[in-house]
């Protein structure tokens, strides 16, 4: 005798796994918009950057500003940052609306396809900065540099954001205030 299921569509059992899009992303209370963060890992490690906002994926959107330390508009995970007590007032800064996770997703570069006659010398696609990135960088950085210029300690702030962080001897991070 054949097995006939009682339901037309078998129900899936409840899984305790939630999709990434439904995850709740927390943000350290020490990180607020305008906080200067020290990047501790990655390409820009040691740099002091300005935190702009947290994106939907939970990653932080930061900018160098690019002119000061070469760090562009970028996403980073908050676990690779040290939040300092230095905060800029970026309440008046308007970020372009297109800055979201999709904007920052890695672009798939075309892999060189070997056609019949050309085994070697097929050009690899190199990453180039798109014009919209350059536009947004300039737009955001202009506002942030204006905020710094209004600050009383602007000369030192410019120097601060342009310099790199390092630990000296007898400097223990767990005993330091950032």
């Amino acid at each position, binding site marked *: 005798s054949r097995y006939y299921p009682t339901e037309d569509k078998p129900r899936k059992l409840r899984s305790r796994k939630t999709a990434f899009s439904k995850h709740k992303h927390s943000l350290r209370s020490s990180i607020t918009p305008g906080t200067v963060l020290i990047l501790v890992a990655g390409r820009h490690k040691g740099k*002091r950057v300005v935190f702009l906002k947290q994106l939907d994926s939970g990653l932080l959107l930061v900018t160098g500003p690019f002119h000061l330390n070469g760090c562009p508009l970028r996403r980073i995970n908050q676990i690779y940052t040290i939040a*300092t007590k*230095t905060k800029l007032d970026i309440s008046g800064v308007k970020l372009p609306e297109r800055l979201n996770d999709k904007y920052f997703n890695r672009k798939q570069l075309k892999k060189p396809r070997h056609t019949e006659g050309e085994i070697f010398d097929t050009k690899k696609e190199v990453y180039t900065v798109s014009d919209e990135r350059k536009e947004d960088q300039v737009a955001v950085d202009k506002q942030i540099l204006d905020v710094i210029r209004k600050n009383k*300690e602007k000369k*030192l702030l410019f*120097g601060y954001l342009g310099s790199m962080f390092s630990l000296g001897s007898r400097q223990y991070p767990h005993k330091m*205030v950032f």
Partner: protein
Amino acid sequence: MVLSQFRFVEVGRVAYISYGPDAGKLAVIVDVIDQNRALVDGPCSGVSRKQMNFKALELTSIVMKIPRGLRPGNLRKAWEKQEVQKKWDSTTWAQKIANKKKRAQLTDFDRFKLMKAKQARNRLINVEFGKLRKTVKRPAPRLRKKKSVKK
């Protein structure tokens, strides 16, 4: 060895408590119990009247004029009248402690500003030093005998 170079344990000697729950506070030695312990009280610094081992007490240069066993209320009056806190704050010891505390609370930006300030100061010092160096007459450098090539 002159006796006056020592700080003595005596009634009225103000001590800095170096460890324990009251570490960092000032207290007066009100009475001596035995070879190891003193009766200590710090009404204005939050130290309740208690016995303390001398090991935990670091004697300061401040001595109060109080009778032995002075009660806390009158001790507080004497402390305020004899301006113990003011005398303590003017000592280099207290200033060093305060500086250490300040350094520990410096933020990353403060440390950067401190570094820049130190650089600016050192530049000034080096400029002056360079000027002084030029004024000093230097002895003529001794000519070395050229080594003759032996055949």
